[in-house]
């Protein structure tokens, strides 16, 4: 069922934030096109002799306005990176190109953890120690060989409290020890079954190079040729790379903060790839590329500390009231989004319960539950977003409509990015009644989302349930294996029955691309693996 937006009575929030990573301004684009027609018509009449020059797109267009067929591949990023230090924080712009320069012991592809610099996945030697063997043929871009000392240096640097890394994995390591030239023992502060996953985000640099991160030396397929802060970064093939040479020798990453400008740059032929485009822009770009699997899940976070969502029937009604397939049909397509199973995080990642399905759309059932709970007409504030993610304003309006039709009384507030950050971290009783949120996956496991949302002490939690807390702690304590999966299955099923969240839909990575490249992204949205880009012949 396709939903039309009923905008009456919806209260808007702060103005759209420019340059959101998945922002869109569809009404602006319609005005833009109308105004452009008027302006273009005027110009055509006024400049009758100028048409010939306009046909030659490479003439008079500036130094790099149109990309030559065999020139570097140009990617647009939504902003400039915080720094060139891969250990400092989780910065998606930095990882866009720096993750081609540096490598880690493991990598994550399509939700699976694989060895990269390690010969095989690390093995647990005790509850708090792991051993990892390193490949013996890896050479950094400066010609030096990678060995255990480099791994120890890098991991110690990230985990050093004095260094103050803001990466989530920084606290995962309590110590390292060189066993031999190509073997390292890693200690963790407590049992941590996800250490191999976390190692996938910890980059290895040569010993001592932490003081010169502005001249990065890595073992990846590319190396940094130039960096113009705020403008662009250029990476070129690293001749010391041990693996297969990527087809593209040179990649330029341009920092373009405004989403509309990024699309226009693609339309003008100035860039080849724009990550995180909105479905609204599909008909404007030469080609749309999607990741094989979903990379982000959107959900609603109810607050069970006070009415109306302190009653499980009301939370279940919330879930039954949402037409997930309708939202997908209206705003996306079955090629780009799937209804989310009843668990946080992206589908097909580690620790998921494969038996859990999405709540079905059943507004009658929702109303029945509300009547049973004496909560028909229950009012609450729905904190949605605008300009934060793809078509969020419209989707939130449709969700509010669906909830009203089921019997809720909704006051919709649309928050820009800054307010959204405040809302997501507003936890406990004082947190939002209901919040539209999203989660990605950078560790091939649901654990981060489970900890954040299901534990009362979670960083984004407005949910408290003693039994769920018990189940989460029990599940997280198991090493990888069948027992862990069984514990996760039980915990996730309980959370689903309790409707701790209302998961909505999971979206694939959406990229706008020029016709001259082919690309199949398999990494998380934070690390798109640009070395997989190929030039299309012809």
């Amino acid at each position, binding site marked *: 069922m396709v939903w039309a937006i009923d905008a009456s009575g919806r209260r808007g929030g702060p103005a759209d934030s*420019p*340059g959101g990573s998945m922002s869109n301004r569809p009404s*602006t*684009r319609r*005005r*833009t*096109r109308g*105004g*452009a027609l008027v*302006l*273009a018509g005027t*110009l055509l009449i006024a400049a009758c002799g*100028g048409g010939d*020059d*306009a046909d*030659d*797109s490479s003439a*008079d*267009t*500036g*130094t*790099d*306005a*149109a990309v030559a067929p065999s020139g570097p591949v140009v990617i647009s990023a939504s*902003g*400039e990176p*915080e*720094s060139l230090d891969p250990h*400092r*924080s*989780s910065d998606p712009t930095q990882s866009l190109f720096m993750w081609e320069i540096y490598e880690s012991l493991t990598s994550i592809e399509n939700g699976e953890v694989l060895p990269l610099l390690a010969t095989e996945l690390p093995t647990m030697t005790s509850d708090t120690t792991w051993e990892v063997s390193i490949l013996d043929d890896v050479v950094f871009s400066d010609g030096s060989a990678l060995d255990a000392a480099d791994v120890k240096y890098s991991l110690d640097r990230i985990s050093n*409290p004095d260094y*103050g890394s*803001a990466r*989530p994995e920084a*606290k995962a390591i309590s110590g390292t020890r060189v066993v031999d030239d190509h073997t390292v023992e890693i200690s963790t502060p407590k049992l941590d079954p996800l250490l191999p996953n976390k190692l996938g985000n910890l980059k290895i640099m040569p010993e001592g190079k932490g003081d010169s991160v502005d001249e990065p030396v890595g073992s990846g397929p590319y190396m940094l040729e130039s960096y113009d*802060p*705020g*403008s*662009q970064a250029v990476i070129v093939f690293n001749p010391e790379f041990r693996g297969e040479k990527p087809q593209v020798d040179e990649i330029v990453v*341009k920092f*373009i*903060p*405004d989403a*509309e*400008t990024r699309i*226009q*740059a693609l*339309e*003008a032929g*100035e860039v080849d790839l724009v990550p995180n485009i909105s479905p609204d822009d599909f008909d404007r770009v030469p080609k749309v590329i999607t990741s094989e699997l979903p990379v982000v899940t959107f959900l609603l976070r109810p607050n069970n500390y006070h009415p109306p969502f302190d009653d499980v029937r009301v939370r279940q009604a919330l879930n039954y009231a949402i037409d997930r397939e309708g939202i997908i049909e209206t705003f996306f397509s079955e090629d780009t989004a799937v209804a989310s199973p009843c668990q946080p995080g992206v589908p097909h990642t580690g620790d998921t319960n494969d038996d859990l399905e999405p709540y079905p759309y059943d507004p009658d059932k929702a109303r029945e539950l509300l009547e049973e709970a004496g909560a028909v007409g229950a009012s609450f504030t729905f904190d949605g977003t605008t300009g934060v993610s793809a078509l969020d304003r419209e989707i939130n309006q449709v969700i509010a409509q669906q909830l009203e039709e089921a019997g809720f009384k909704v006051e919709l507030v649309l928050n820009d990015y*800054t307010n959204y*950050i405040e809302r*997501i*971290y507003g936890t406990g009783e004082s947190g939002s009644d209901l919040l539209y949120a999203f989660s990605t996956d950078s560790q091939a496991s649901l654990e*981060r989302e489970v*900890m*954040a949302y299901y534990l009362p002490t979670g*960083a*984004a939690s407005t949910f408290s349930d003693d039994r769920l807390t018990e189940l989460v702690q029990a599940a997280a304590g198991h090493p990888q294996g069948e027992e862990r999966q069984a514990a996760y299955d039980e915990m996730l099923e309980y959370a689903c029955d309790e409707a701790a969240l209302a998961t909505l839909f999971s979206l694939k990575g959406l990229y706008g691309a020029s016709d001259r490249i082919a690309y199949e992204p398999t990494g998380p949205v934070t690390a798109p693996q640009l070395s997989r880009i190929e030039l299309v012949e012809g």
Partner: protein
Amino acid sequence: MAAPAVLVRRPPRLRGLTGRSARSAAIGRRLVHGLIVVAAVATVVFVVTRMTSDPVRRMLPIDATQEQYDELQAQLGLDRPLVEQFGSYAGDLVRFDLGTSYWLNRPVTDLLADRLPQTLLLVTAATGLALVGGVLLGVTASLRPGSKRDRVLSAGAMLGVSIPQFWLGSVLILVFAVNLGWLPTSGTGTWKHMVLPTIALALPSIARVAQTTRGAMIEELGTSHIKVAHAKGLPLGYIVGRHALRNVLVPITTIVGYELTYSLAGAAVIVETVFAWQGIGYLTIQAVRRQDLVLLQGIVFAIALLVVVLNLVVDVLYTVIDKRIDL
């Protein structure tokens, strides 16, 4: 013959001082007033940013522990009492130490040194275009008030003032970069990169300068000394350029000074973001999004100082344009 009507400001003279001493004292007084304004702005931005943002939370991942939060908060000095924080902040400002950006981990003064010239280049170009274009259009419209030409130009000015700059920027990119392919969509580097952002920034200013010029010129062209000049058979161009325009330079200077300030302190933020122009406007948006208090404070302080200096320059220009005006 009656003396020509001229706009004259008559501020009070400083008792006992004359000539250059009076001028220097007046400039000094203006500077002191300006610094008080800067101090007030710096205080307001300190209070507002502390009340409305939590940069520690913004910098940490979603699953950060309270321990990590407390550690980072202490590292940034944000766990200290507000009064103590303000004391450090004020002391640093006096020494022109604007601190280190949380986001980029670089001294704010370095970032300003890198980015401010780009903004000044853009704003200067746009204001120059506004001056030339606005005066030309305003004078043209004023020569025959109420005529078809005047009505068209006035409507155009109204449109120019009303168009939102982010929309204008997108339209300019669509027409000139995407459809016609004449200019790049965004970025910096060559003169071609400057064209579209300059136009986007200048267009509303051209409209406002044109409106002000038109109004002042109509009034001036109606004065008796201009009528006498007509009666003497002087050419229109001579009358306009030699007599009328000189007498409206003061209001034109006022509006151009305003446009320069407005562009610097406001419009450049939007235009730089749309065109990925690497100036401090773009940096401001990023600082707000990332709740980088230090960077935001530094930018606001620098802009406030610049605005004070600009206003002083405009005040001095008045005295140059019309020697009867005192500071």
